[in-house]
């Protein structure tokens, strides 16, 4: 995923004559609204600490003051900086939106992660230092879920091979290409929850599900897909693959269609056919697209949860648990947000390290051939 801006930048020279009064108004807006935000936040904090009751029912007033400050900040850009401010206005709303909705909750999450906080008990948040870390260290189910993520991620190799094969076939000279493309795309459109029900609960039902009946017809006496750990994991992998293979297939297909026809023609003239042409021309040319597709697929795979939550709830014995589904149950069963948040934070750090290494590696691997 190279994030280079490929287009030329727009160069505009503008001469703004911004009066001092306008600049002052802009600054007044920003600082005034910031002051208001601080004041409201302070009053609310005082009320929470029990100094005095100002009649706030919740933290909404602070939220509104924050939104007001954000709007004032955007507006002041234009007031203070004129044309340059108008340009900032393109990116600033999105940046403010993302920062307020991720950075702030993440910092808050760090605070929760080192607390014992049962939402249903009246005690509220209790700081408990590194207790959660110790608990995590000794929690075999969490490490088991982490290990499961490795298996789930490795399944992407197979998904990629299937997706590549399908893309190659769709790229061949075939009839009814549009029908096949739409049919192949449909699984991606369906909600994982519906997929859990349609396939996981209904079609894999032991007594009368069509897949179970097929298995029995093929000579498997007692097909139960969710009783042994290996089979259950495989079933989850297959369902997830069913939904997401179209995604990789479409990306690879788009890449295949971007390969200049002359290249493959030239290869054919040179006598490279079939298998050899694929390995020596198509595959290397497709490497950048493949890496992008796989990286994005890994990102989505690391979020896998819906199917597991709805089909197996992590069972049997945690064999199908993903980190997300494990934390989900941890919260559902004990409504303890502290421990769950710590696990999530550890998971996030692990993901960041893993993805950074992977992208570095992919970059080095893909660059020379590009």
């Amino acid at each position, binding site marked *: 995923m190279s994030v280079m801006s490929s287009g030329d930048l727009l160069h505009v020279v503008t001469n703004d004559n911004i009066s001092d009064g306008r600049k002052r108004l802009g600054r007044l807006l920003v600082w005034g609204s910031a002051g208001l935000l601080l004041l409201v936040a302070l009053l609310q904090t005082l009320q929470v600490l029990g100094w005095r009751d100002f009649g706030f029912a919740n933290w909404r007033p602070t939220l509104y003051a924050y939104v007001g400050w954000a709007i004032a900040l955007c507006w002041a850009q234009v007031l203070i900086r004129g044309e340059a401010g108008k340009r900032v206005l393109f990116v600033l709303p999105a940046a403010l939106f993302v920062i307020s909705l991720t950075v702030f909750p993440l910092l808050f999450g760090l605070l929760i992660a080192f607390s014992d906080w049962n939402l249903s008990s009246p005690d509220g948040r209790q700081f408990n230092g590194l207790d959660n870390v110790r608990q995590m260290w000794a929690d075999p189910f969490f490490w088991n879920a982490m290990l499961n993520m490795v298996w789930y991620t490795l399944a992407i190799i197979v998904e990629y091979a299937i997706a590549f094969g399908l893309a190659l076939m769709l790229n061949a000279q075939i009839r009814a290409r549009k029908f096949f493309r739409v*049919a192949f795309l449909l699984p991606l*459109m369906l909600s994982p929850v519906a997929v859990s029900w349609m396939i996981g609960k209904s079609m894999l039902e032991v007594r009368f599900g069509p897949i179970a009946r097929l298995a029995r017809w093929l000579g498997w006496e007692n097909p139960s897909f969710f009783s042994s750990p290996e089979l259950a994991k495989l079933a989850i992998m297959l369902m997830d693959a069913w939904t997401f293979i179209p995604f990789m297939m479409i990306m690879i297909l788009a890449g295949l269609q971007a390969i200049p026809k002359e290249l493959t023609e030239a290869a054919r003239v040179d006598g490279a056919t079939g298998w050899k042409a694929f390995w020596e021309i198509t595959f290397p040319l497709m490497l950048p697209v493949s890496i992008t597709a796989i990286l994005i697929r890994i990102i989505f795979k690391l979020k896998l949860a819906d199917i597991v939550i709805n089909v197996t709830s992590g069972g049997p014995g945690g064999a199908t648990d993903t980190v997300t589904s494990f934390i989900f149950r941890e919260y559902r069963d004990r409504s303890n947000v502290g421990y769950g948040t710590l696990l999530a934070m550890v998971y996030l750090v692990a993901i960041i390290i893993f993805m950074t290494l992977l992208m570095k590696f992919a970059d080095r691997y893909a660059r020379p051939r590009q």
Partner: protein
Amino acid sequence: MNAQIFHDTAADLAPRKGGTLGKVGIYTVLIIWAFICLFPIYWTATTSFKIAPNVMQGAMIPWVDYQPDWKGWRAIGLSPDTIGTDSTVRDEFLKRFGNSAIVAFSASVLAVALGSLAAYGLSRFSYKWAWMRNNDISFFFLSQLILPPVVLALPFLVLYREVDLLDSRIGLILLYALSVLPIVIWIMKDQFAAIPTELEEAALVDGLSIWGAFLTIILPIALPGMVAAFILSLVLTWNEYFFAALLTSTHATTLPVMVASQTGSQGISWWSMAAISFAAILPLIVIGIVLERYIIKGMAAGAVK
């Protein structure tokens, strides 16, 4: 950038001679895979017309194996004979359906609006904020994609409780917009980068402001890309389950939560489950068939540079 991604012209589609055996093999695999993709949908649709004995027998084909019955649809009040009467289940279903529609639509609009603006800015101007330049800012936006929902879920649960946004549609809309924003920015950056800057330069010379040039000249050109980003966001947000399951309870629950909540209770009534599931996925199947071009355009963005 309006170039076709897939070539469906007559010349492309005309089959070439040779390799009949290979052709048969290709079609066999294609048909098998199409069957794998479509069968679960077919199974759900047909199961919604079965009654208990049909389900137990594992009947497959309507009118041949079993006589279709409206039982499943009657259970959710959507069969022809119950459609005029009062039905609490139907009201419930329609409420969830409405919630899903409102949340998915609003979140997608918000994400496409914010994302397009940011993508345009990043593709046209050079920014500098602290140590961050354009590439760093882009990376900041895109890196949000790796943030697993579970990391945000619990802090949001607590924060939303404090600001009284739990179980509200606004709360879900904000989170959903956040979760699809990186994808929108990714697609739209690609779109804007393909539009030559001469267009705006000419407009600026003609006296338009930069926002005027963006709104009147660039936006119409980038519209197909925006539609692609919008549809993709719509699909992702319509299907979202995790946040909805954690952050909503009665008022703002969406369809996936309703589908999921049916599974556990007192012996599964297969027919009504199938009916609910099918009704939940039907809008997406329609979108998938009708707007396939846009979905593919959205997903192919970035794959081909």
